């Protein structure tokens, strides 16, 4: 019988009741007395010098309360990058300040250079248009293509950065010569140039922010669509506006998806706060979908050359990559970590590869900032690696399954120190490969291919054996790697007098289901029903200082903090029970919600202990504080390393080039699984996004820096009919060795492992159909690209 409560039970998500019945409360749902509306004036050119911004007419328009330009924020601090990356020569990265509103220059289409606050949205909109009409921006040549950006020193995104280069990073630079030598000596060398396509995050809820200020107390409040309210508070308060942290509350209420794009602090948040102070009225802003396309931090956008040296029988000897990573016009908060430490450190994959070297040049362009997007660096690494291994197999006529098996680390090799700086704690990659092959009925493929052929379709099968590093992150390690923040998390467990529980977490749920699964863990540990546990998140005035949710960290990091806080509750409960039961503390056991004197039937329920803590009539007050509330902070000792094997089957229509994913099998190792239903949902969502990247999504700027895919008329999102019924398994479990729940992250896995499986399957189908000249097709593997490849 599957469990029906506690850890491991597939409980339906409690938050879905409000989400599915329209009772969620999102930022834009909040109506405030006296509220006003902000609208931003955004650049329509990608690169331009601001000659004048004339706001006089706009300021006099009906309902207009305030206008702001970049000059108003010229002297406030910049929105910083969270990671300092050094170039190969030891020099620190170039770090231009990111302003609240652009001044001097505009650097991408959508870059805000002025804002209007008015009584109504329509009035603000009219006045914003007036400012746009009254402003003079001298258009400069746009810098769009990364190679051209680096090559042409005369045209600069930031005038002080001559080659548009943020940094030139080598990982690990000291290993470079050895890798070059190994590559030189390898009996066979494979080369592949590929593009990891730029993606627009497209969270269902666009970004929205409301600023409030109380002149009576000097308190600010920012309600905003954030994945991490405390980090936003820190950035707004300490780095941008200079507000004392204790005078600013940041609330991230229900948030409709983020995928990374809502990790970061954006200028709109600072503007609504500054405007609220000026007007002493609430100031609200909600992005239009077009603004989301233009200004949300985009994802991926790498151009990579990867080389692989191997033996003739497919033993990998060396891997070397050169990547140009687009960072866009400004450094978003995690933008420098994403193409480096979240990418280069994964370039050994789950394989024993003695020599790996990664070079990343990160380039400024006149495009929207690029930052972490579901998977963040790891999909880019996995795609490069799994595609070139597939290419190696074709060049050497080797079986892709056997080649993976030959190169995968074996269970006896853990802990394993990779040549790119990580220590994998545990895993069993053969087990997930075996499982996926069984699930996919690999031996039955020929029959299925024949059946497809009878219907006029080419069938192909693609494999990806992936690994990632998540549960971000051990602070000591990321500190060495350049992080300017710690990446621990925190939880407070408050037992109420009547025995039910409020848990305040630093993790923020914006679709992940924390309210359900965190309650399951606490309920299991305390032997009480889930309904007695409430999860509180997203409000800096209520929760301990946590670092939010991204990098598949909520359960591994915040869940561990919560577990440790519960352990403290149990420890204190034992002390109380020992007093009440007149026994020694060491004799008290806690099981199934009962504190018991070992070997006797003397016991107190959890509820009795809680009550005693708050009504301490019979209580050891001289040695123990009353109350039952504990906080724990937890900083992980290592990343967690989920891994798995994905097998994709596609059918290709040669006439149109259309690819249909007809089967997708996932065998994942997430360690222990707390709620299988939620894990499956996370995998489904991740693979759906991966299929979207592989087959559909692309972001195109023209040579003038205009976003051509700026709406759903041209930006293709995956829909239900684009994805198959997923076959998901998580039974291969090697529990994480360094957190008490033995859990690894599952939120990004699907998006990391799936794109190469899809593309490998398409190439396989084309080869089986005789189109052996097709060595590679860049994502998205769209119908026109497939048709062109076949007929090229």
């Amino acid at each position, binding site marked *: 019988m599957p469990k029906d409560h506690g850890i491991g039970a597939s409980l339906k998500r409690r938050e879905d009741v409000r989400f599915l019945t329209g009772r969620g409360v999102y930022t834009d749902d909040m109506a405030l007395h006296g509220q006003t509306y902000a609208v931003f004036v955004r650049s329509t050119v990608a690169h331009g010098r601001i000659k004048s911004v004339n706001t006089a007419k706009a300021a006099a328009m009906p309902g207009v309360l305030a206008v702001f330009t970049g000059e108003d924020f010229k002297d406030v601090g910049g929105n910083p990058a969270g990671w300092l990356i050094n170039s190969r020569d030891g020099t620190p990265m170039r770090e231009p300040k990111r302003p609240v509103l652009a001044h001097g220059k505009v650097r991408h289409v959508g870059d805000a250079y002025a804002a209007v606050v008015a009584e109504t949205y329509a009035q603000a909109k009219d006045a914003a248009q007036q400012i746009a009409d009254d402003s003079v921006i001298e258009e400069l040549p746009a810098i769009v293509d990364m190679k051209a950006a680096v090559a042409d020193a005369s045209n600069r995104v930031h005038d002080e950065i001559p080659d548009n280069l943020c940094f030139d990073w080598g990982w690990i630079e000291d290993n470079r010569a050895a890798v070059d030598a190994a590559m030189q000596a390898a009996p066979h060398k494979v080369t592949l140039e590929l593009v990891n396509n730029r993606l627009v995050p497209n969270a269902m809820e666009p970004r929205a922010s409301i600023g409030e200020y109380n002149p009576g107390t000097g308190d600010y409040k920012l309600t905003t669509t954030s994945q991490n309210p405390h980090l936003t508070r820190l950035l707004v308060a300490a780095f941008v506006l200079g507000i004392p942290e204790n005078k600013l509350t940041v609330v991230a209420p229900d948030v409709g998806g983020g995928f990374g794009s809502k990790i970061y602090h954006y200028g709109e948040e600072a503007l609504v706060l500054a405007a609220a102070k000026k007007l002493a009225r609430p100031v609200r802003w909600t992005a239009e979908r077009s603004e989301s396309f233009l200004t949300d931090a985009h994802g991926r956008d790498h151009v990579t050359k990867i080389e692989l040296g191997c033996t003739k029988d497919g033993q990998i000897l060396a891997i070397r990559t050169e990547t140009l990573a687009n960072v866009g016009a400004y450094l978003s908060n995690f933008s420098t970590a994403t193409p480096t430490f979240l990418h280069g450190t994964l370039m050994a994959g789950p394989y024993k590869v003695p020599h790996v070297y990664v070079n990343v040049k990160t380039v400024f362009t006149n495009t929207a900032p690029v930052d972490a997007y579901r998977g963040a660096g790891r999909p880019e690494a996995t795609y490069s690696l799994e595609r070139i291994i597939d290419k190696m197999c074709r060049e050497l006529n080797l079986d892709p399954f056997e080649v993976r098996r030959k190169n995968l680390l074996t269970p006896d090799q853990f802990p394993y120190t990779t040549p790119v700086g990580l220590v994998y704690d545990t895993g069993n990659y053969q087990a997930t490969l075996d499982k996926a092959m069984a699930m996919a009925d690999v031996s039955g493929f020929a029959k299925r291919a024949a059946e497809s052929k009878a219907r006029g379709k080419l069938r192909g099968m693609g494999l990806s054996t992936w690994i990632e590093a998540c549960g971000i992150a051990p602070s000591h390690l990321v500190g060495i790697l350049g992080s300017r923040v710690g990446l621990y998390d925190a939880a407070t467990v408050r037992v109420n007098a009547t025995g039910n529980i409020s848990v305040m977490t630093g993790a923020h749920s914006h679709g992940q289901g924390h309210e359900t699964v965190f309650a399951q863990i606490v309920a299991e540990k305390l032997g009480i029903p889930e309904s007695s546990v409430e999860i509180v998140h997203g409000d800096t005035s209520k929760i301990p200082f946590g670092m939010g949710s991204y990098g598949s960290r909520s359960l591994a990091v915040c869940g561990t903090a919560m577990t440790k806080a519960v352990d403290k509750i149990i420890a204190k409960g034992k002390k109380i029970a020992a007093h009440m039961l007149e026994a020694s503390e060491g004799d008290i056991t806690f099981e199934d919600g009962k504190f018991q004197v070992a070997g006797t039937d003397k016991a107190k329920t959890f509820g009795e202990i809680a009550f005693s803590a708050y009504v301490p009539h019979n209580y050891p007050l001289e040695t123990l504080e009353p109350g039952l509330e504990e906080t724990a902070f937890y900083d992980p000792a290592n990343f967690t390393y989920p891994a798995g094997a994905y097998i994709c089957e596609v059918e290709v229509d040669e006439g149109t080039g259309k690819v249909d994913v007809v089967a997708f099998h996932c065998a994942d190792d997430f360690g222990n699984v707390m709620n299988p239903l939620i894990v499956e949902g996370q995998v489904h969502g991740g693979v759906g996004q991966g299929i979207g990247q592989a087959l559909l999504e692309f972001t195109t700027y023209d040579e003038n820096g205009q976003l*051509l895919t700026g709406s759903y008329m041209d930006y293709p999102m995956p829909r239900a009919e684009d994805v198959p019924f997923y076959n998901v398994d998580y039974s291969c479990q090697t529990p994480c060795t360094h957190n008490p729940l033995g859990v690894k992250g599952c939120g990004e896995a699907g998006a990391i492992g799936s794109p190469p499986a899809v593309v490998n399957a398409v190439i396989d189908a084309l080869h089986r159909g005789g189109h052996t000249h097709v060595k590679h097709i860049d994502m998205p593997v769209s119908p026109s690209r497939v048709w062109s490849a076949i007929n090229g």
Partner: protein
Amino acid sequence: MHNFDFAKPSTIAEAAKALAADGAQALSGGQTLIPTMKQRLAAPGVLVSLTGIAEMQGVCMGDGGLHIGAATPHAVVAKEAKAHYPALAALAGGIGDPAVRSRGTIGGSIANNDPAACYPSAVLASGATVVTNKRKIAADDYFQGLFTTALEEGEFVTSVIFPIPSSAAYVKFNQPASRFALTGVFVAKYADGVRVAVTGAGNDGVFRWKEAEAALSGNFSADALSGLTVDPDGMIADLHGSAAYRANLVKVLTGRAVTAAG
């Protein structure tokens, strides 16, 4: 969106009068016009809704074939044309999504004449008659290029009359984002010959592929197309496909439409 006045006449005559006003703009299902207004790319002073006019609603058989009121939503056509003209019903049922099909209308579609819209291909391939508040216009004369039709100032479509073919099919290849036709081909077989109309592919909007019509009129099978080529000149090239790709789609989809029509 800017402010506008709104009129909802209940007869064709009232509508014609309302549309004579300065700055008046006809509104049918609003599937193109409303998003355009929301983006402030259009700002008509008066919107004249055509959806409250009873005589512009509904699907029925009549003189010359199937009469469809211009303000009939796609979802209604999908349901009610099925018994009379299944290929047309299938086309209507494949436009956009359920929300679009509940609001969007045939009259709105062909008045706008988006080069990637589905309906123009059916109207042209069927040799349908476009009925307006002023006159009747043959399909071959009605479509005049991108977003351009024979409609004159103050003129609006009130119904479309489709002759019923002996067999027909529409095959659409979706543009992956918008789900408009990247290319769509409507093939209709009549006693006096086959008509083939292509949407989504031509720089000048919907067009008849006359070489295919000639070949298919002699031999209504996909094989009849094997010797034909489509010239990429004049085909749309955009983010989603080159001119050569679209030329290929025209041929491939025409063959599939013939096979589907049987």
